[in-house]
């Protein structure tokens, strides 16, 4: 009995240790914008044993692929479609698993961000935006201190081109709330810079990206945007 319990405890401890290692590896890959590592981790993870880690890895892969996608010009249709397919595959894998998680603010935030990676065109915005907005709103409703959820909620307002400025300002307010909750949240700093750039305040936008870069010297988007501005037609 004891030995079985011991085995179980050891197994849990081993699993916990592995999970902690994987979690740390995902965090490192995310911090370094290392798509290769993120893809390898996602391939190695067992979804049944650690669904949450798989979701994190899937979201990271989708978001890092997304950066590649944004940098690929529309004239390179084949390459864009290939990257797009990889993003969709990672996001759908994450979305399938997120259904298995207990309902929480974070699960809804993950859902919102995964849906966000699917939105790469106006057409896809039409198809997925409402689901994303519902998911981020639910995430905030369930936990008003979830800083990442505010960033998810701000994305449609900031990144949708052609919308009126009040939408950007509404998005900026959500980002400010996220930064109040977590002043070092990299995604919030990047998005704030983007919103300010759109509003014409380039100095403040650069300050925001500089802050993100000082917090994470490997922050590739901040580096690129400081050099040449954000992409002209970003989606979510």
């Amino acid at each position: 009995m004891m030995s079985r319990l011991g085995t179980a405890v050891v197994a849990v401890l081993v699993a916990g240790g592995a999970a902690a290692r994987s979690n740390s590896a995902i965090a490192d890959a995310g911090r370094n914008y290392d798509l290769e590592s993120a893809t390898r981790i996602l391939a190695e993870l067992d979804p049944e044993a650690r669904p949450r880690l798989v979701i994190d890895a899937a979201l990271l892969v989708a978001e890092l692929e997304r950066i590649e996608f944004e940098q690929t010009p529309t004239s390179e249709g084949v390459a864009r479609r290939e990257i797009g397919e990889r993003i969709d595959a990672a996001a759908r894998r994450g979305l399938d698993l997120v259904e298995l998680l207990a309902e929480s603010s974070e699960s809804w935030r993950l859902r919102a961000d995964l849906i966000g990676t699917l939105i790469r065109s106006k057409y896809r915005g039409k198809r997925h935006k409402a689901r994303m907005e519902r998911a981020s709103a639910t995430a905030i409703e369930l936990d008003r201190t979830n800083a990442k959820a505010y960033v998810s909620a701000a994305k449609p307002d900031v990144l949708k081109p052609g919308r009126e400025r009040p939408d950007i300002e509404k998005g900026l307010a959500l980002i400010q709330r996220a930064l109040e909750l977590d002043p070092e949240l990299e995604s919030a700093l990047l998005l704030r810079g983007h919103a300010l750039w759109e509003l014409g305040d380039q100095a403040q936008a650069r300050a925001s990206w500089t802050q993100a870069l000082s917090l994470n010297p490997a922050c590739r988007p901040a580096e690129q945007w400081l050099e040449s501005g954000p992409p002209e037609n970003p989606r979510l």
Partner: protein
Amino acid sequence: MNHLRELLTVVAFSVLTAFAASRLPDLESDHAFERWIDPTTPSARLYEEFRENFPSDQFILASVTHDPPFDPSHFDLLVDAVSRIEELEGVARVSSLPTLFRDVFGSEDVADLAAEVSSAPFYDRLLISDDRRTLGIFVHLSSATGAAERARVVREVRTVLEKAGVADAALVGPSVLNAAIDEVSDRELRASLPTAALLSTLALLVLFGALRPVLIALACSAVTVIGTLALGDLLGWKLSMISTALAPLIWVLSLSGSTHLLASYRRLRATRPREEAIRHAVVEVARPCSLAAATTAIGLLSLTASGFRPIREFGVLAGAGLMLGVIVTFGLGRSMLALVDTTPASRLDLGVGRAAGRLAAASARHRWLTLAVAGVAIAAGTSALPLLSADSNPLRFLGPTERVIADYHHALEALTGLSPLEVLIDEVGGVDDLVQQPHLDELAARLASEPGVAKVVSPMDVLRKMNQWHHDLEADRYILPTADRVEDVLANADPLFAAELASMHNAEAGKARLTALVTPLESSDFLALAERFQDHIIAGGLVGRAHPTGTVLQLVRSQGELVRSQLRSLGVALVLVFMSIAVGLRSLRMTLLSLAPNLVPVVWVFASMALAGIPLDPGTVMVAGIALGIAVDDSVHLLTAVRRARLRGVRPLEAVRSSAEALGPALCITTFAVVAGMAALLGSAFVPIHYFAVLTTAAMLVALLADLTLLPALLRGYTPRPRVR
């Protein structure tokens, strides 16, 4: 003989001609349709209002067939091409499924694009064919773009498509057709004019039987044509499609003048010394040549009353050119004769003269038979005139082997109509008012039901599509938004659709447009369609608020008015010409006798057109004027000669015979040299040039025949009254 004076004259003409020739490269041609629109008419003012409120209705349509059509790699090619086309100067915007694919679908979801296209009839017969195999890329040109710029954009669009690997795209639209017409006419003229000049020269060589008179005749004609064209340049005028008739007209009539001088000289040279022969020849032909040129010039000056600037300019230039021809003939021609001399009349000359004399004498001898035959010919020609149509279809200007024609047939069969007929609608208010006006939708449906209308593009359809997109692309939401939701729909509209709506509805001015894309029709059918549009407007309760307009309608109306104006001018010219003859010959009887022979070529030009199915258009109607000029030229010479002979006491029959014998070589040489030149143009792939050659040939031959048969028959009974000094 003062050779120095003659030499100085030749040098002076050479210097002036060199100066004039140096101006010719600057001579521009402008085929812009705007030149043919009389801005003072109510329809032109309506069109101007349309242009002020909406972007240009000029477009280039690239029709691309591919199987399967929704192939991602094919769309990649098209996206690349469209992106490059958008960067071209003069392009306002591009409407196409590849644009939608790039801007809205992120160049990713081609299957979803296919589903969106099938969800509503919005794109049908505009951006995609009914069989879903052909895509339409509409390149809208900016309204400030002129004819030359439009032609440049057409070339650049074609180059972009070829470089992008879409070389098989069919490029069509009014701008493409105009550019092709300009290109083909220039190419054909470049290719056929040297041959025409060569054949004409060969004919002159054969008929004169010597090189020197040919050189003199050619030099006189060339100097006159160059001088006339240079005058146009000095006045800052541009050539138009009507001006294409200018050079041949001046060439023919100036050739006629110099040939008369040369023929007369050669005839006299057989019995007189050179100096005396020149002096007598000048005395003999100066008066009829000047009178003929003056009468024709006065007739041409009547064109200055036209409402169309290119016609007025043609009238002035042609009139000036004819008078210049007289100066050149009796200045340069005379001096060249004095310097180089020529052989006396050849046996061929004499033979031609004798034949002409016999024909004239026979016609005069059997005057009643001749008059009867002429009467029958005039009656037959006149009876054919009702068959004459004033229709015009620019597609028929080019031969079926031209690529643009094949492209037109492809685009028309696969995709849509290519001639836009616009309906400008006033007082529609803003967009929220627009959705509450079902009669606009009804009108669009009525217009679309008309035969020949492939598609009616309406702002309501754009609003439907915007509403569908606003409701996440649900197919059953392809309906007009309710008035209270319009603001929301507009606020969230994609810029692509917003631009499309702005091109159809000017909210600030409260004006909208319906664009009917019409298959190519004869001009009369197009006008009839516009009339039926007017009926629909009345039936739809939009009287006074909706008006058909657009570039094509303006052009069709202008063209009709142009033909009517030229016919009126021809009538005025006839009156002026005969008044000039009356004044010049100081004889009302001679003038009346010259009426029939001069009218026969004109009647027969129109009759030939009617019988050959050649429509009366601004180009072909010019030939009647040329026919009149040629006929008058020939008959004035004959009338003067007969009158002189009769005043000398020569008996009527002999007066007619000897005059025809003396003038026969000149009349025949001019006619056959021109006919030989025209033969080179008969095979032209540019249909107006072909028609011009056919009709000018007919006019020349009929004019010669009338002057050698009908005029002698009429003159047989003529007895001049001696002038009292």
